[in-house]
C-alpha cells in the first residue's frame, strides 16, 4: 500500500504546477470548442451539513452542455457524472481532462451527453466519496443532492437509465462505492485507474508516524500522508476526538485493529461479496488501468472479483501510467461506453 501510494505521489508530482508540499494539482484552463457551453453551478448539499472539518456545503460543479442543447429546446440528455481524484479540485480535473473537447468529440460521433464534474475537495485533500460525520456524506452529495439539482435545472433524462457515473483514481474509488451503495441512481459505472481497492493497512511504524502529525502539519503534508489522513477522517471518524475528529490507526503502541476493521468496511474489494445484487443491477460496469500504473494490481483484483461473482464487466489494461492517457480515454473509451449503456430517452 505504501509503495503504491509513493508511486502515485511520484506520478502526481510530475503534474503539479509547483513542487511545493501540499500543493493541490492544477492544470491550465481547458479549451472550449465552438458549440459547447460550460456553466458553473453551486449546489447546496444538505448531506454535507454539519460536517466537522468545516468543508463547504455549497459545492461548485461544472456542467458541460453538448452542441444541440441551446438549439433543440425539447430535447433531453443523458448525464455522465465524473468524479475527480485526490489532491485536485473539480475545476482543475475538468481542465486536465479537457472535458469540453470530450463532449464535443462524442457529439461528433452522434452521442450527445451532459457531463457534470462536481468539486469534492476537502480540508485534507479528498473526501474519499465516503459517508463520514467528519468530512460529510459525499456519497449522498453525489447520488442524491447533485443529481436532484442537475435534474431540476437541466433538460436531463431524469431516471436511472439516463445516468452514468465515472471517475479517476480516488474518483474511480468513488465510482465503485457510490455505485454499490446507490445502484438505483445510475445505470452504468466506469472506474478509471481506481485507487484504494484493497483494505488499507498500516504497519506499527506508519501508524505511529501518522498519529504524530499535528493538524497544522497534516493539511500541508505530502501526497501520501494527506491521502492516509483523508482516509482516516473518511473511514474512522470520531466526533469526540479533535482536532482531526477521527481515530488514528495507532493505540497503546500498536496498530489499532478496530480502526483497521472500520477502514476494511470501506474497501471496494471487500465490499463486492456483499453487494452482488447492486452490482448485477447495472447495465454496464467498466474499469481500466495503465500497464505502468502502480494501481494495476489492485484494479485487476477487483475486475477478477466481479468475474468470480458472475458480474458482467468490461476491463482494459492499456499502454500508460496513472495519468498520462486518462483524458484521452475519457473521450475514446468512457463516453462510448456510456453511449452503449445509457438510454437516449
Amino acid at each position, binding site marked *: 500500500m505504501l509503495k503504491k501510494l509513493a508511486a502515485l505521489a511520484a506520478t502526481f508530482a510530475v503534474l503539479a504546477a509547483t513542487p511545493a508540499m501540499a500543493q493541490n494539482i492544477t492544470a491550465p484552463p481547458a479549451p472550449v470548442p465552438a458549440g459547447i457551453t460550460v456553466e458553473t453551478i453551486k449546489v447546496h448539499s444538505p*448531506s454535507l451539513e454539519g460536517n466537522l472539518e468545516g468543508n463547504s456545503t455549497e459545492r461548485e460543479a461544472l456542467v458541460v452542455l453538448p452542441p444541440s442543447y441551446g438549439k433543440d429546446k425539447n430535447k433531453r440528455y443523458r448525464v455522465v457524472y465524473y468524479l475527480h481524484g485526490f489532491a485536485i479540485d473539480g475545476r482543475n480535473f475538468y481542465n486536465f481532462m479537457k472535458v469540453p473537447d470530450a463532449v464535443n468529440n462524442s457529439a461528433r460521433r452522434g452521442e450527445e451527453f451532459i457531463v457534470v464534474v462536481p468539486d469534492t475537495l476537502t480540508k485534507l485533500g479528498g473526501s474519499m466519496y*465516503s*459517508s*463520514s*460525520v467528519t468530512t460529510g*456524506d459525499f456519497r*449522498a452529495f453525489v447520488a442524491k443532492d447533485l443529481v436532484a439539482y442537475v435534474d431540476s435545472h437541466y433538460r436531463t433524462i431524469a431516471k436511472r437509465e439516463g445516468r452514468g457515473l465515472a471517475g479517476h483514481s480516488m474518483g474511480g474509488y468513488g465510482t465503485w462505492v457510490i455505485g454499490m451503495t446507490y445502484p438505483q441512481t445510475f445505470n452504468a459505472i466506469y472506474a478509471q485507474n481506481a485507487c484504494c481497492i*484493497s*483494505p488499507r*493497512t498500516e504497519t506499527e511504524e506508519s501508524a505511529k508516524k501518522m498519529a504524530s502529525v499535528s493538524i497544522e502539519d497534516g493539511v500541508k503534508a505530502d501526497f501520501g500522508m494527506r491521502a492516509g489522513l483523508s482516509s482516516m477522517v473518511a*473511514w*474512522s*471518524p*470520531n*466526533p*469526540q476526538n479533535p482536532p482531526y475528529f477521527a481515530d488514528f490507526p495507532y493505540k497503546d503502541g500498536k496498530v489499532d*485493529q*478496530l480502526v*483497521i*476493521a*472500520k477502514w*476494511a*468496511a*470501506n*474497501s471496494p*474489494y*471487500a*465490499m463486492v*461479496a*456483499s*453487494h*452482488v*445484487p447492486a452490482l448485477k443491477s447495472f447495465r454496464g460496469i467498466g474499469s481500466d488501468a495503465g500497464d505502468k500504473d502502480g494501481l494495476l494490481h489492485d484494479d485487476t483484483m477487483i475486475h477478477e472479483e466481479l468475474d*468470480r*461473482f*458472475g458480474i458482467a464487466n468490461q476491463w482494459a489494461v492499456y499502454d500508460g501510467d496513472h495519468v498520462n492517457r486518462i483524458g484521452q480515454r475519457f473521450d475514446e473509451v468512457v463516453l462510448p461506453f456510456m453511449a452503449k449503456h445509457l438510454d437516449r430517452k
Partner: protein
Amino acid sequence: MRGSKRVTRRLAALAALALAAFAHIQPAAAQEKARVDLVKVHSPAIAGNLEGNPADRTVYVVTPPGYDQHPEKHYPVVYFLHGYFVEPKAYAELFDLGDALTGAAGAGNDVIFVMPDGFSKHRGSFYSNSPTTGNYEDFVAHDLVAWVDAHYRTLARRESRGLAGHSMGGYGAMRVGMKHPEVFSSLYVMSAGGGSVKLITREMAERAQADDGTVDLSAPIGGAQGDLAQLAAWSPDPQRPPNFINAGLLTDGTIDPVVQARMAANSLIGMLPQHIRELQQYEAIMLDVGDKDGLVTDSRAMSSELTRFGVVHKLEIYDGGHGDKVKDRLRSAVLPFFAVHLDR
C-alpha cells in the same frame, strides 16, 4: 403525508362498502383473539442462491383481535427477525405469539406482527445479501414488506413500520435498519450478535474448508456450523463448491486478508460509521441485553459508539441471560416500545 392518508382512508371506506355489500354472503367471523397465520412468501431476492435455500419463505403473520370485524381499519406493523440455529417456529412457540399480541391489543396497542424465516442451510442467514445463502437483506426490506402491504391492511408507510430482532435477528435488525431508513422508522435490537469483528483463525478455516457440504442438523449450537453460516453470509465464493464459501486459508497457513476484511466489513461496529445519517433518521432506537449474556460487552460497545456519534438511543441491561427473558420482554418492552413510536 396528509394526502396519502386521505387516499388510504378513501380506499378503506371503499373496502368497507364492498364488504358490507357481500356481508350477507360471507359474514366476517368475529376475531376475539390475535390470529397467527402461517403463510408462504415468494422472494425473488432469495431465488437462485447456491445453498438451495427455498425462495418460498415461511412467514408468521399475527393479526390483532378485531382485524376481521373492522375491515376499514389499517394497522402498524412490527417486523421481527428470529435468532440463529432455529427455524421461526421455535420463536413463535417461545413467544406464544397469539397471546402476546392479544395482550398488546388489550392494552390499546393493536398491531400486525410479522416474523419471516431467516433460516438457511447452516442454520441462519444473518439477514445479509450473499449469492451463497440468498439475499435475505433484500428479502426483508423489499419482498417481504411489499408482500405484507399487499396482503394485509397495513399502514403502508415507514412511520408505521418497526423492525426488531433477537440475537442474529438483533444483528439483522441493526443491519437492515442501517441500510433502509426509508422502510422502517424505529428499531428494537435484542441481545444482538455480530456486533464485534469476528476474525477467522487458522483452526476455523481448516474446519470450514474440511466440511464436505453435508449438514448435520442434529449438531449442537456453536462449533463449525456457526462459522460456516457467517462465512456463507459474508465471504461467499460461487467458484468453491460444495459450500460456496471462502474461509481464506492460504497455502502458508495464514488467512487471506480480504476474508478478514469482509468479516470486518459485515460487523455492526465496522458498518456503523458509514451509516450515521441513516440511523439519525430513526424516530427511536432501543438496544437491550441480559446482564448474564456474553453479548453484553458488544451491546455496550454498540451503545457507546452510537452515543459518540450522537445517535439518540437507549440501552437497557436487564437481569437475565441470552434467551431466558425474551418472552417476557416481548410483552413488557418490545411491543410497548412500538406502541409509543409507530404512527397510527
